[in-house]
């Protein structure tokens, strides 16, 4: 397997793909947003319970490639307990990682996605769950998609 491909499919990603965390619906959710990329068929819904400004609980469900599913799974572990502003900041960092491959040392798990940047067609897979989560936080009723923009 090439170095690029093993960079893309890091152990962390394979692990989240095989054993997704926080997968399923959330009966107590007070925010839900749906994300889909119609041309490739990936779907990801994010369910969260906001307690004041903080994400008290968060789950995702949907179907798609290993990159999209692992990214959504890992995201839920990172966003729990965060405020909307903190979530946005984390996404900005994640976006920087997947588009440039540069990962600051302090955010080790998200750095597993650095390999995505050499596969530009897959960036939209990695960011789909995040867009759904940000929409849920904003209360945006529109389904999120990452196919219309570059990221």
């Amino acid at each position, binding site marked *: 397997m*090439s170095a690029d491909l093993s960079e893309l499919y890091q152990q962390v990603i394979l692990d989240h793909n*095989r054993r997704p965390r926080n997968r399923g619906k959330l009966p107590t959710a007070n925010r839900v947003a749906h994300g889909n990329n119609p041309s*490739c*068929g*990936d779907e990801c819904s994010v369910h969260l319970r906001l307690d004041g400004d903080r994400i008290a609980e968060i789950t995702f469900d949907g179907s*798609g*490639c*290993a*990159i999209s599913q692992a990214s959504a799974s890992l995201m839920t572990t990172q966003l729990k307990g965060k405020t909307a502003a903190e979530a946005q900041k984390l996404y900005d960092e994640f976006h920087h990682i997947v588009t440039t491959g540069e990962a600051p040392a302090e955010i080790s798990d998200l750095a597993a996605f650095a390999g995505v940047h050499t596969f530009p067609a897959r960036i939209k897979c990695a960011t789909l769950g995040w867009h759904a989560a940000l929409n849920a936080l904003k209360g945006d009723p529109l389904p999120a998609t990452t196919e219309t923009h570059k990221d």
Partner: protein
Amino acid sequence: MFDLARTRADFPILHQQVNGKPLVYLDNGATSQKPRCVIDALVHYYERDNSNVHRGLHALSMRATDAYEGARARVAKFIHAADPAEIIFTRGTTESINIIAHGWARAHLKAGDVILTTEMEHHSNLVPWQQAARAVGATVRYIPVLGADAEGGLDYAALDTLLTPAVKLLAFTHISNTLGTINDAARLCARARAIGAVTVIDAAQSIGHTRIDVEALGCDFLAFSGHKMCGPTGIGVLYGRRDLLDQLAPDETGGGMVVSVTYEGATWKPSPERHEAGTPNIADAIALGAACDYLDEIGRDAIAAHDHHLAQIAMEKLSVIPGIRIIGPRAGQPRGGLVSFAFAEVHAHDIVTFADEDGLALRGGHHCNQPLMRKLGLTSTTRASFYLYNTAAEIDVLVASLHRIQKFFVG
């Protein structure tokens, strides 16, 4: 059988490395590669004959017109149409179907009528009918696909109840781009004709792969794309019976399709000009004619036999990979030259990304067939689709790659 090595030599694009491996192009269902003679036809036209057609009296315009109309006659012969005027050049299958859905369906359908199609249609032969039905208050009904893996093909027995007098149009695909199922087009057309319904065949997947005779099939309309039959992109065909095309309202109006224009209005020429407003896609039509020549030289029966041969080898070798689910006809049954499959644990896009490392061009996704995918409980499949230049050795590359992927993801 034809000479595979010689055929491969006709396609310049095949002789390259992708990710350090020889290209194994198995995405022919999406688009085929182009032989040298088709590329040469384009170059020759632009270097020697380029001019606008029909309106000119100078040498180049006459040459361009002769070549363009020659291509029309060539395509007519290719599908055994009675008259070149029954060939309308379009952008492709999608546009051809839309012309009927706009012109014929909206003029002839009324509330309560039924458009009958099947559960295995490409979105291009589905959405235009839904839109036409919506516009006039008609209903779209579907011939069911049988079997948990769609292995049973169309439910022909259901035609007895589905073909009611309310059915005014039957539209169906000749070969499914997702399943590989070969539908019995002549039987479907005969049944529809018996109740006076108009028939539309989506021949996108069959045109370059099997002999097509519109008279023997007994269809009223037939649509296909040049790019899936060794021709260029941007050119396709709508075949229609002459009387139907001459009645059909033009979808687009403008130059070239009018008899007489006054400040008050205009009158239309008969087919084909009636349906080709504006400067047509001259170069690509001419190159499509060259593609017809190329395919007939090799022989479409030989191509169909080659497709079948590769599909059977692929079925045999793929079906033993642990965890694979193949949809469409079972091994040994007739199928077009493609195989669609899914693994519970590995998503199609991961497969396609991995296979690309091995030089393989595959397609993963819903193949513009979302309702069928949903019915089969799938969100996507990986598809390997073959053509006249593919070899059995290339299937071995595919199988080895899938074993490696399966091992990586599942262990």
